[in-house]
């Protein structure tokens, strides 16, 4: 990963912008969990719709009215079972799903009173009850004698591994990193996953047994796709997107120009957020969730001025309206129609960024107006998307398109024994919940394939 660390502390780039206490407060839970009475009252608001729109809007098919009815009757284990049997990462999805675009967007209460049922918070209430108490809801079926390799310990891989383990298969999960969880551990904004929740959830999921973990194993290095296909009955690729897109500007390597993904990973891993280097004036390039996450978190770390510069218009932005509003609430400026032109350096560090001001054309494309805009910047975060590391994949005639793995509806790739899911597949939508669904569907398909004629 090409990345420039901040070379040295200066007037405008420094740590300890806020006290440890202030930072702790800033990074506490984005939404407080519901208390029991709040949960009961909120659960009562659910109309128990027929063929419920919320369930249809859920990428992982959670029976939303079903689990809410169980909360309403104090049957929290039943509620959690309904959620986790469709989505084993129901706890994390309750925290980081863009519910305002999925289940809550579909809630019929929007038509009635413009206030949907707080499905995300209710889901968290139900799943916390079993995760916090370590109630194991799943058991493994009889050993099938089949073994499956899972590459990547993110939501897709672990979801697939868990479902296969339930079905009685033996799983080995490989991951390049030290800790499991993928973006749940290294990517999601810190205020969405507090108190080491990502690891707590992984521990809960792996508690079922039958899942062997191998960390420090990178595809194309310590392990190969060819080798895995030989060694295992099936392979699931949930390797995510291992590298980030670049601006392709000539002086992109100067100090202060940073990959947002890597900065966030550091932020998530450090125990001393106050020691992170934070710029005074920050410019974030991008328009997705990562852009919002790095912008908001920079503010929470004490940056004075944070501007998101997005090359297209508001409606084209991948970050949801809710997320854009969250950024604005944290005093982040969002500027649209700005296309990066050049980085302006001052001695060894970036000092500003110049943009072409764009204009939306009738055909939907954008065109430079000829005007320019320069934003002061001690730090420029690149949040312009990630891409698949194709080394270790291409030699095996695995079909790729637009740099992603091609899969069918069962998440099966062009290779007989290989399935894939999560961010690495074509048309993946970069949501945790979709990755979990991919893993689940692949597991069901793998199981059907391996047990056929058995």
């Amino acid at each position: 990963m090409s990345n420039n660390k901040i070379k040295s502390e200066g007037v405008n780039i420094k740590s300890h912008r806020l006290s440890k206490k202030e930072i702790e407060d800033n990074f506490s839970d984005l939404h407080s969990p519901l208390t029991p009475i709040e949960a009961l009252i909120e659960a009562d608001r659910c109309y128990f719709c027929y063929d419920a729109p919320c369930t249809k809007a859920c990428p992982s098919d959670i029976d939303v009215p079903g689990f809410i009815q169980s909360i309403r009757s104090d049957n929290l284990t039943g509620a959690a079972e309904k959620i986790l049997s469709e989505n084993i990462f129901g706890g994390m999805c309750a925290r980081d799903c863009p519910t305002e675009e999925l289940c809550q967007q579909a809630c019929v209460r929007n038509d009635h009173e413009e206030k949907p049922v707080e499905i995300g918070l209710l889901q968290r209430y139900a799943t916390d009850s079993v995760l916090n108490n370590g109630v194991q809801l799943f058991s493994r079926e009889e050993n099938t004698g089949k073994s499956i390799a899972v590459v990547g310990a993110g939501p897709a891989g672990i979801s697939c591994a868990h479902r296969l383990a339930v079905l009685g298969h033996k799983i080995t999960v490989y991951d390049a990193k030290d800790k499991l969880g993928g973006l749940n551990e290294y990517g999601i904004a810190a205020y969405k996953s507090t108190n080491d929740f990502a690891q707590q959830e992984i521990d809960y999921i792996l508690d079922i047994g039958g899942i062997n973990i191998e960390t420090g194993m990178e595809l194309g290095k310590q392990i190969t796709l060819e080798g895995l296909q030989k060694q295992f009955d099936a392979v699931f690729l949930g390797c995510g997107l291992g590298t980030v897109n670049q601006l392709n500007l000539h002086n992109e390597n100067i100090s202060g120009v940073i990959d947002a993904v890597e900065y966030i990973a550091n932020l998530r891993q450090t125990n001393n957020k106050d020691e992170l280097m934070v710029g005074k004036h920050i410019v974030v390039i991008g328009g997705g969730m990562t852009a919002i996450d790095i912008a908001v978190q920079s503010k929470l770390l004490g940056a004075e001025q944070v501007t998101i510069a997005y090359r297209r218009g508001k409606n084209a932005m991948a970050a949801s309206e809710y997320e854009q509003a969250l950024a604005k609430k944290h005093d982040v400026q969002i500027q649209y129609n700005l296309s990066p032109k050049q980085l302006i350096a001052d001695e060894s560090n970036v000092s500003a960024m110049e943009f072409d001001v764009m204009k939306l054309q009738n055909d939907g494309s954008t065109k430079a107006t000829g005007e320019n805009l320069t934003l002061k910047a001690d730090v420029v975060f690149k949040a312009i998307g990630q891409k698949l590391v194709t080394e270790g994949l291409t030699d095996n005639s695995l079909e790729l398109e637009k740099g992603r793995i091609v899969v069918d509806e069962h998440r099966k790739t062009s290779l007989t024994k290989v399935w894939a899911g999560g961010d690495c597949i074509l048309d993946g939508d970069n949501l945790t919940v979709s990755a979990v669904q991919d893993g689940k569907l692949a597991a069901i398909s793998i199981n059907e394939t391996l047990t056929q004629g058995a």
Partner: protein
Amino acid sequence: MADLTSNFLGIKSPNPFWLASAPPTDKAYNVNRAFEAGWGGVSWKTLGEDPHIVNVNGPRYTTMMSNDRRVIGFNNIELITDRPFQVNLKEMRQVKRDWPDRAVVASVMFPMNEASWAKHIPIIEDTGIDGFELNFGCPHGMSERGMGAAVGQVPEYIKQATEWCKKYATVPVIVKLTPNITDVIYPAEAVLEGGGDAVSLINTINSIMRVDYDSLTMFPTTGGMGTHGGYCGEAVKPIALNMVAEIARNEKTKNLPISGIGGVSTWKDAVDFIALGASNVQVCTAAMVYGFKIVEDMKTGLSNFLDEKGMNSVDELIGKAVPSVTDWKFLNLNHVDKAVIDQDKCIKCGRCHIVCEDTSHQAIEYSSESGDRVFTVNDDECVGCNLCVSVCPVVDCISMVAMTSGTDPRTGKEISSEVADWTTHENNPLKVS
């Protein structure tokens, strides 16, 4: 502003909202606070013989609640007053003196022997109270001792005790009825026969609230053992309304004045009771849940309602709805309603569809083919049962609309403007021709 003053059996009060005989009217302290808050009258908590009874020192009240802890139903095992007879008399005398414009009625419960009535009734009346209310309704505790509901369940006892009370009282006598019977007409007629001036109903309904899910004992208990109590509050109102209406439309009892009791929580509940034949209402649970202040809205709500209806007084409302209550056999079987869904108001929850599909007549169709959820009534199957209206979360989204002409597509029969009920129906083996 409509006139809210009430004249019940000659007992005048500034409004028709009385507090029922119950804990809120146990002593002068409470009653003074009630009158300060604006209540029109009270039925003082039931007096009995000395030595006074004792109550349990454990849970006397339990509620059934919604998830947001709104009280729906209320259970109690409290007995009649547990204070000395003379203390109550002294306080009643003082209260009536201090509040001459308010109604103060003495609720009483004595054993089935005339001597007891002869001894107590005149002394109580001497306090200056406006009337008596005979408690023949309490279903717990006192009924084990041959009083309360034990009297109210035997028309002959009701008649006898009413006669005794009338013999020794000069003020009006109201008899409070128990709902723990099969047909309320029998006790009501017994009151008439005994010379009673009015009935009040309902008293509470025998009930056990639930079990304790940890100990698997009934809930609540007094140190491990529990007993059934009397159920009241909003949940019982429909039961009370039916009994009030039954008495109001019964030929023999239709002129017997009624004080309506049972789940009155708002002015609307009072409208229900009064329109179905009550002359005033008595309230307990709502006060025990919210305090005395709730009477303020009851008064302004009823007054505004009367104004809107162009009525000058509560009296004009009494019994307005009684003529619309009849026996099932007289309902018009030629009438045909069909459900109509206002698609602009529909929020597409689909509850009308699933309840009709699963539990009724498969008359609401669902389509989602166009991507839009659409629910439509199939008139070929709709029997006009009103279940869809009853479960729809949106006000006035589904309504029942009467067919006035054409053919009912369900039966193929032409809509007739003629009234035809069960008494003349061809399927009735006992039909009258």
